[in-house]
């Protein structure tokens, strides 16, 4: 069968006319012939299941509550949280995965929400800083952040809490180095790092972490 006049019905829908010249199109029609020697090229691939050019349904669990939303593919998880769902506890700073202000837990794993698409978390459980407390009761780590004065302007704090919470959930005692490694992707303009580490160590090891810093301070004072 070699029916050159056959209209390739699906081609227009797939937007091919926009980029292909007339000559290429004729050649394309020839290749539509099912008897063509090149089966893969003979037909443009189906794109019917493409989603997200317009808002598409998305379901996931956010801080323990099921969420249903209509979201475009281009929307990042961070944009969905802050702009569509008004959950502004998660911060936007660099929007390039370099600062950690936007970190959330996705199925327990700390990830930069600015470098994920909202549709990546379909069916997942997302925990933001707002989901760390039990109702009005702050988590032990949040209390420790207050106790240890682990924040100044607070922009990095959500991300610091998320990274540190993931580390603490692994269980067991921690060293300063382990905490520093876990928050290596969280930038703090105010330089609160030592107090953040103290707070995390206090939760992981009891107050030993704090004493360690006090010793450090005594040493520095004497130098």
């Amino acid at each position: 069968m070699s029916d050159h006049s056959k209209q390739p019905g699906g081609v227009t829908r797939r937007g091919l006319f926009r980029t292909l010249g007339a000559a290429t199109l004729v050649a394309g029609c020839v290749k539509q012939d099912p008897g063509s020697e090149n089966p893969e090229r003979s037909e443009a691939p189906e794109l019917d299941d493409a989603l997200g050019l317009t808002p598409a349904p998305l379901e996931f669990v956010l801080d323990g509550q099921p969420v249903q939303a209509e979201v475009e593919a281009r929307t990042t998880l961070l944009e969905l949280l802050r702009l569509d769902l008004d959950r502004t506890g998660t911060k936007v700073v660099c929007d390039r995965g370099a600062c950690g202000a936007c970190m959330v837990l996705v199925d327990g794993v700390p990830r930069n929400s600015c470098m994920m698409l909202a549709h990546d978390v379909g069916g997942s459980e997302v925990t933001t800083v707002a989901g760390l407390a039990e109702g009005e009761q702050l988590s032990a780590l949040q209390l420790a952040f207050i106790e240890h004065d682990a924040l100044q302007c607070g922009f990095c704090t959500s991300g610091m809490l998320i990274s540190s919470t993931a580390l603490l959930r692994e269980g067991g005692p921690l060293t300063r180095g382990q905490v520093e490694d876990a928050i290596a992707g969280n930038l703090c303009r105010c330089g609160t790092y030592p107090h953040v580490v103290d707070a995390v160590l206090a939760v992981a090891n009891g107050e030993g972490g704090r004493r360690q810093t006090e010793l450090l301070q005594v040493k520095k004072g004497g130098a």
Partner: protein
Amino acid sequence: MQPFALIRTKRLERARAIVRDKPEARALRAGGIDLLDRMKEGLDEPELLVELRDAMAPQVELGAGQPLLPAENPERFPSAPRFAQIGALTPLAQLAAAELPGAEALTEAASQAATPGIRNTATVGGNLLQRPRCWYFRQRELVCLKKGGDTCLALMGDNRYHAILGAGPSFIVHPSSLATPLLALDAVVSVFAGTPSDPPEGGATTEPNSLRLLSELFVSPADDPTREHALEPGDVLTSVWVPVLDGMRSAYQAVREKQSHDWPLAEAAVRMRIAADGSMRDLRIALGHVAPIPWNASAAAALLEGKAPNADLFAQAADAALADAAPLDGNAYKVPMTKGLLREVLHRASGLALPE
């Protein structure tokens, strides 16, 4: 970002066919870290992303299989009693946590790349195939050699982070931190590249799952300054294979301006065996972030092959590795720095204590 659509497929054939149908407007997406970065910057504006995450599984397996050698010239691929197979979709964090005795250079590099959060998303394949981080390339407004311009802007501009080896006409450094240890470990990669009946336009026929030396994956700017890897649109890097030799040892180290989350200024990775007579065998040395491709310092490795570990010898090897260095006006510091780095990594890999 500009509007785009997503397609998820379990079939690599379909993912490849979709991209090949309109390569200028479609892209494959793995972890998407570099891809989203480029899209946010306006460097790339695909209208359709084809997701690979349902088509391949993240995995690191030691000794479970061997790469399928091609019928022609199989001897040009490394042989080993065991291979570690790393799925291209494996997140860096999973690779960093894997037990790969002898291949510590790789797990160390994976544990130091980017940040903990990014390592949970970024994949092994994406790390190898990411575009360069050169600040001229990454600026949308600047038309550099990589973007169809006629000159590399690093030549006239601030080139403190650019190449000192094997460069020109483009002076980028290759951005992959996994490529450095993988090159030292003599890795090979599986690429899904269609069927034999489906040669790329004007290209050679390829096997569905063609095996390539890792070094063949990368393109020198002298051959084509607009690309860094040899994959055609729609081709999918599926696995990385690391030969695990008996008694193999390896080490990796990078120098950064900051302790955390920073691109390396230089990297060195070394693989070797120590034979019964105490001599170093099967030595391979790779340098990273000093050249537009992951740099194989084969002359330095040849100088050490069969010799016993020795501090003076290591210093000579480091000199040999950088003998052809041609720094620009802002990056001459990289020459002595890389020499020192390589000496340290040679000491660490061989177990010879560092001199005072």
